[in-house]
């Protein structure tokens, strides 16, 4: 495996971990925010460097030089590959922007030390491809929100129940897959994969296992809930745990359930009366669309899904940060009557609209091409999937503009204090706006990067379960379903040294 020039990954994980310990000792919340910002900034620099370093190496996967962990444990744990390379900076950026945009009034309620721990765990998860370790890190990642709920004296029963079930099912499924052993180039049996699949679906908040997400948004701080769900960790679990081993039937179940969730959540977002629940359903709808794309397994569909993953992370992350900034000014946001905040915070209004439009795939924003690719491939496989994604996207668009009108229009809100955007918030908002617009105007580099990641995933699946699905172009005729693609026989393909989930050798040129 190719080595990075410096141990960026280990540093990127270690810095927030140490930062969390340091910040946990501080009593002054403002100092905690300051040091958290330093830690998040350094982490961001490390993971961006890892990404750039990886790009320079032209490798399919790379790890840290020195192999400190490998010497300690016996094998390489943290790697960077085509899939995770841009996801790591996305995660670090979200944490950095949430930290920087945390207002003085909220610093006492928001636990910076737990936030840094969760950042370290999330970066470790996204740097890891070993199934058991991914499950372990996913399980650990559920701990910080749990303790925050406890600290806020809110009921943890629902969150704990769903997360325990999810982790339990993933463990059970992985155990069954391990017991089943080598399948000789065929996918694993459905009964072995189903527990992992449902564990992952619970983590993704797929219908009908989604109620814990709204509960978390209502009870935890907005920042914690946002950081827990916006990076779409469930999709990463699907890619690492389900995609390499699942038979087509399991993927179809995942796709169908995600499709229903995407449409249902979009419809639910339309009738929400609480800002947080509205945001949660919007997030669920988009993360489900990513899962729909992952199910299709064709290069275009996968590229679309992975592009959408990035764009949703950035745009909904920005959308959430904007809503959080509004909450810091007005308290819990109700979507019942017009709040008239436009004149008070025009910059937040523009950012709200811009990030909202990006997440629904508006032209010249970062979400446009990903949505196009996804729908394009969905129509190719089954026209009804394409139609459902389009309908979900349309409803999300309506919900987003409705929320914009409810929050920012109406009789001007009169406040005794200035509600104008602060310097830190402006920085966060402008950074996100720049990413949304630049990613929309120059989408090719991002799409090519996701295309390469899609090829890597296809290769991995081919290596483990045989030839990927061949999807011929269906003849679309009105009144008829698109012709069902003929599934080819699984034939072992002679591969070049393939990337595998067990961390075996794969050398870039």
């Amino acid at each position: 495996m190719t080595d990075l020039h410096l141990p960026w990954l280990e540093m990127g994980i270690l810095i927030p971990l140490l930062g969390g310990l340091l910040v946990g000792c501080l009593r002054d919340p403002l100092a905690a925010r300051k040091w958290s910002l330093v830690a998040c900034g350094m982490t961001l620099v490390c993971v961006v460097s890892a990404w750039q370093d990886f790009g320079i190496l032209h490798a399919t996967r790379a790890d840290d030089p020195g192999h400190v962990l490998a010497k300690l444990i016996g094998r390489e744990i943290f790697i960077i590959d085509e899939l995770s390379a841009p996801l790591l900076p996305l995660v670090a950026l979200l944490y950095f922007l949430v930290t920087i945009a945390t207002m003085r009034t909220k610093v006492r309620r928001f636990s910076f030390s737990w936030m840094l721990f969760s950042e370290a765990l999330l970066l470790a998860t996204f740097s890891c491809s070993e199934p058991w370790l991914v499950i372990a890190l996913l399980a650990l990642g559920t701990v910080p929100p749990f303790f925050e709920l406890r600290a806020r004296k809110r009921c943890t029963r629902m969150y704990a129940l769903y997360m325990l079930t999810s982790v339990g099912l993933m463990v059970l499924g992985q155990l069954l897959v391990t017991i089943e052993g080598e399948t000789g180039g065929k996918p694993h049996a459905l009964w072995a994969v189903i527990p992992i699949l449902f564990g992952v679906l619970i983590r993704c908040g797929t219908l009908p296992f989604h109620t814990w997400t709204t509960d978390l948004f209502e009870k935890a701080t907005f920042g914690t809930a946002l950081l827990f769900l916006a990076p779409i960790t469930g999709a990463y679990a699907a890619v690492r745990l389900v995609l390499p081993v699942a038979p087509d039937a399991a993927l179809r179940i995942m796709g169908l359930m995600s499709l229903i969730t995407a449409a249902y959540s979009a419809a639910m977002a339309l009738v929400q009366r609480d800002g947080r629940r509205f945001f949660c359903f919007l997030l669920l709808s988009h993360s489900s669309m990513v899962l729909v794309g992952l199910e299709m397994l064709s290069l275009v569909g996968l590229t679309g899904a992975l592009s959408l993953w990035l764009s949703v992370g950035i745009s909904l992350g920005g959308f959430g940060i904007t809503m959080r900034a509004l909450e810091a000014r007005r308290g819990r946001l109700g979507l019942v009557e017009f709040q008239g905040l436009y004149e008070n915070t025009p910059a937040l209004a523009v950012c709200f609209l811009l990030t909202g439009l990006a997440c629904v795939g508006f032209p010249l924003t970062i979400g446009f091409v990903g949505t196009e690719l996804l729908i394009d491939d969905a129509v190719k496989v089954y026209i009804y999937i394409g139609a459902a994604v389009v309908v979900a996207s349309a409803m999300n668009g309506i919900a987003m503009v409705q929320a914009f009108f409810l929050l920012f229009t109406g009789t001007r809100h009169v406040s005794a204090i200035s509600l104008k955007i602060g310097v830190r918030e402006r920085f966060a908002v402008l950074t996100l706006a720049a990413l949304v617009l630049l990613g929309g105007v120059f989408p090719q580099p991002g799409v090519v990067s996701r295309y390469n990641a899609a090829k890597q995933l296809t290769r991995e699946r081919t290596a483990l379960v045989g030839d990927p699905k061949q999807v011929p172009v269906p003849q679309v005729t009105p009144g008829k379903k698109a012709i069902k693609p003929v599934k080819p026989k699984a034939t072992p393909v002679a591969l070049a040294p393939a990337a595998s989930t067990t961390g075996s050798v794969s050398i870039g040129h």
Partner: protein
Amino acid sequence: MTYDLIFNVLGLVVVGAPAALMVVMGLTTLLGRPLNERMVGRAVQCAVTVGLVASVVMLAMMLLLGRHHVPIELSRWVELPPAGHGAATHGSESHAVAESATVSDEYHFHIQFVFDRLSVPFVILTFVLCGTIGAFANRYMHHEPGFNRFFTLYALFLLGMVVTSMAGTIETLFSGWEMVGLSSALLVAFYHERPAPVRNGLRVWIVYRISDAALLLASIVLHRIKHLGDFEAFLGSTHWPGGTSPLTSYEALLVGSLLLVAAAGKSALVPFSGWLPRAMEGPTPSSAVFYGALSVHLGAFLLLRFSPIIVLSPVVGGLTVAIGLVTAAFAAFAGRVQTDIKCALTFASLTQVGLIVAEIGMGWYYFALIHILGHGCLRTLQFLRAPSLLVDYRAMENAMGDRVQNASSFWMRLIPERLRTWLYRLALERGYLDALLSDLIVVPFIRVMTWCDTMERKWTAYLTVEPDRQTQRIQPPTSTYEESI
């Protein structure tokens, strides 16, 4: 310097001028440093003049050189090569994927603009009317608090119109189409301190999203059938309006129906007509240019652009004529009872748009294009004169020395009194179209989803046992939808 190079430069200027205006207005707004009124006026004047001059020169050159079709290929904006090809692959490993790749793994997204007999008149009309409205609005909106916001949305609208008019691929057309939709909805809600404009803006946005979804589906289906988004691939290589589409009649029926839905939403054809009078809540200049002249004709433009597909399917052609005529009759009927000038003009516009759509269904493409151009100019003039209507009336009555009579016609007097009252109410309620859509679609949808929401909350409450739920106290937002409908 070759003619092709000149054409390319001119093409870039036509699209680049409104794009530059949008960048200037957007960036200054985003950075919280809006331009002053004079600067905005100059920027608008400059962008529109440059774009107009370039498009007129382009027209003159096309006429002089006998060119009826000038494509301007900007770039392959997004390109996914088939697996195993191109720079995106990774060395020796690529061959494994290449073996399993199919043709459908290839994807291109071109940005291409086309100057032809349809797009050039439409883009010139766009620049002329937007320039007029820009100059008018610069005074009309003087010292309005939302002056900068108005012109930012105006710039987005202008860019959207130009991109839609000049689009050479369906994806490019869709991009422009969405920009026009967003700017229109936000301008309807321009006076956002009052709830009515905002509700109407939301209403417009809902209809536009339905229209956008139909166009997106049509675009994707076409892309899947021909693997390309270029118009030439599915409208034939012969230039507009003589193209022969290679689609089968079934494919034409599917795509044509979707395009008709998209056009109906954008041009407020029946059954989506309800949003057009609501759109008059916006400032008069935007009402004039959007709903009187340009935006309302965009659906007709779409049908004209895709006329080779419509002509392939007699069903779609028949539906186009029927929807056009029904819309014209409906608008003429509802327009007779309107009591404010902007709504009366709106329905007059809709009558003409209905006729234009019917003309397209019957295959009279040039006639429809001329109708659009003439109607757009006339209606803009009428809308701009609308604020001074009372002054005009007073001048007329002073000249006459009497009040203008508004006696009922001979035919009206033939209708029985009760029937006349019923018809009056029917026209006043705009044929109950909005109520019908509300009762059949919106209210059941809200009921179902609200029930789902209640069930979810009950499930959460059952599991969590936490009485002090902060969000329980907020009432459901059903009024927003119901009132908007």
